[in-house]
């Protein structure tokens, strides 16, 4: 009884919160945009700005994994592999061929996406956990290749002096905040991509697979194809992020892409709320910022990431921001218009 009451209260709270946001969405969006755009002018040190950029990077990684794990229900333990492929491919393209950042990043993302497809194809008929293990194997194999293929990857020494992107003749750096703004643009684009996908038949197919795969099949959804698509999109996003990371940090080595990175991305997705976009930002902000804020916990940060997984599953599996919207379903504009018209017609006929 009490529990129900509590549930009702929290639902109510969510509804109030959501209505508030809906009502003031223009000012809220405006203020957030102003803050994000103005951050570099608020006198933060370069160190802090770098943390902001890392939060952006992990938001992108989380958004990428979220497509696969949050929406489609496939747990990948090998996203560090896609991240590495994006980073190495883009770096090599710009180091050896002098490709500019955009071309290099897209090259990295495309190769990551192709690998996503290759990983997904043989594994899609596997049940959840097996698939996770194969993705883990993939992540390790990528690392092994990076270490052993020294002719190209320079082995354990890694790649140095990865050039910073330059756009419109301007070299983007940390000092001129170009990297920060590039991060904002990428985060915005990836968020847009995710939103557009999720609010479509593609997103509904993803979610139906997570909810009940057999029922989805029986509705005619080609589940293997959609699972592969989820893999490809997820890997693509992760690959682009890898390219950005490499050019931001300037130096990569195989050990930048360990299993710990994969679990960190999962922790963010789960902490923020699987299957939500808002949660990814909160998740990465908190999990990336906390070891910096609590310096004494630096050594324990991977322990804390592990604890986050265990505690969230136990006490709040839906994640911090993982509530279900209590607002009415957003009907497409055309539908609203035609329903209105119908209502009017009905009224007219009633009046007659």
């Amino acid at each position, binding site marked *: 009884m009490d529990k129900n009451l509590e549930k009702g209260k929290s639902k109510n709270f969510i509804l109030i919160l959501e209505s508030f946001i809906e009502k003031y969405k223009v000012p809220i969006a405006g203020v957030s945009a102003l803050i994000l755009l103005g951050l570099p002018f608020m006198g933060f040190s370069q160190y802090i700005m770098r943390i902001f950029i890392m939060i952006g990077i992990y938001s992108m990684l989380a958004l990428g994994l979220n497509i696969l794990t949050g929406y489609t229900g496939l747990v990948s333990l090998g996203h560090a592999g896609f991240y590495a492929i994006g980073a190495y491919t883009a770096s090599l393209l710009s180091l050896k061929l002098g490709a500019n950042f955009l071309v290099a990043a897209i090259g990295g993302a495309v190769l990551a996406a192709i690998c996503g497809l290759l990983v997904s194809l043989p594994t899609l008929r596997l049940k959840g956990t097996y698939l*996770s*293990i194969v993705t*883990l194997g993939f992540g390790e*194999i990528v690392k092994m290749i990076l270490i052993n293929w020294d002719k190209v990857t320079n082995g354990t020494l890694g790649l140095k002096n990865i050039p910073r992107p330059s756009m419109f003749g301007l070299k983007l750096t940390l000092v001129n905040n170009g990297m920060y703004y590039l991060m904002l643009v990428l985060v915005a684009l990836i968020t847009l991509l995710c939103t557009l996908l999720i609010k479509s038949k593609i997103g509904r197919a993803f979610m139906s697979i997570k909810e009940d795969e057999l029922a989805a099949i029986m509705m005619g959804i080609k589940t293997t194809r959609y699972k592969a698509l989820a893999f490809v999109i997820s890997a693509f996003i992760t690959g682009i992020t890898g390219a950005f990371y490499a050019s931001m940090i300037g130096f990569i080595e195989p050990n930048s892409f360990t299993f*710990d990175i994969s679990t960190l991305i999962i922790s963010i997705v789960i902490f923020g709320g699987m299957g939500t976009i808002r949660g990814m930002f909160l998740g990465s902000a908190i999990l990336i910022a906390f070891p910096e804020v609590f310096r004494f916990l630096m050594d324990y940060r991977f*322990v804390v990431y*592990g604890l986050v*997984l*265990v505690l969230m599953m136990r006490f709040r599996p839906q994640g911090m921001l993982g509530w279900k919207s209590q607002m009415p379903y957003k009907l497409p504009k055309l539908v609203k218009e035609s329903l209105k018209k119908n209502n009017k017609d009905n009224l007219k006929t009633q009046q007659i």
Partner: protein
Amino acid sequence: MSGILTRNCVATVIIQQLFNGLALGMAYALIAVGYSLVFGILRLINFSHGAVYAFSAHIALLFVGLNFGIIPAIILSIVLTGILGVLIDKTALEPLRMNNSIPMASLITTIGMSNIIQNLLMIFFNTERKSFPAFFDFGMIKFGSVQVNSTQVVMFVVSLILLVFLTLIINKTKLGLAMRATEQNSKAASLMGINTNFVISATFFLGGASAAIAGVLISGYYQIVYPGMGFMVGLKAFAAAVLGGIGVLYGSVVGGLVVGVSESYAATFMGSSYRDSVAFIILILVLIIRPTGLFGKKDIKKV
């Protein structure tokens, strides 16, 4: 003359590596059994098992360092590791079962646990590789032209005895009966008065204890211990369990031996950097060709 000699050498190497592989494979089987037992009862792949294995080796090392003597150190490690297994279940997994959480929740929880254990080991024992005493080194034993290290013989024999012992527990004891009943249908088992939570704890204890024995054996063989050691070995054991058919005990033994031997051969003939990739290749091939493994049963899709 020299041709014959090389041919002889090759034959010797092949046999030598076979022994290496068999000894290692038996130890993998011991770890694989831990995956299999837990999977059989909970339909869960216990991701933290590799970290549990690493824990056991560090505990043994700790007690040896404290001058407990080798045998007491091993026994303590076995008991404490078994308890760690139970603790993982009691603190993290049992509450999820009570809440009827989705399967993904338990999987993620065990990943989290693995992270916690491994990183705590790193904090308390450093990330460096530490040397581990060669417990069972009594010199070389000759079989014709092939020399076998006594460590390997001990590893093989001890693992074999333990696996037989485990099989006996499962097939002949009351606890084993309860385990099998819980595996078939945990609800019905609990209605018949079986304390399923106890059975699950016992399973985790047995899994942890066998991992500890494997941990001591393998560490004694390589004479090296480090916090990340469980990751690769855990995966190899998992590959072994899947190859044999996860949930099938003797399958784990066959799987372990196949993984162990192919790893030895790969390291010898293709270079040691390929040592670790063999298990992945086996795992991926099995999952693609026959996901139920060699001896696993196929589930009928229920609608």
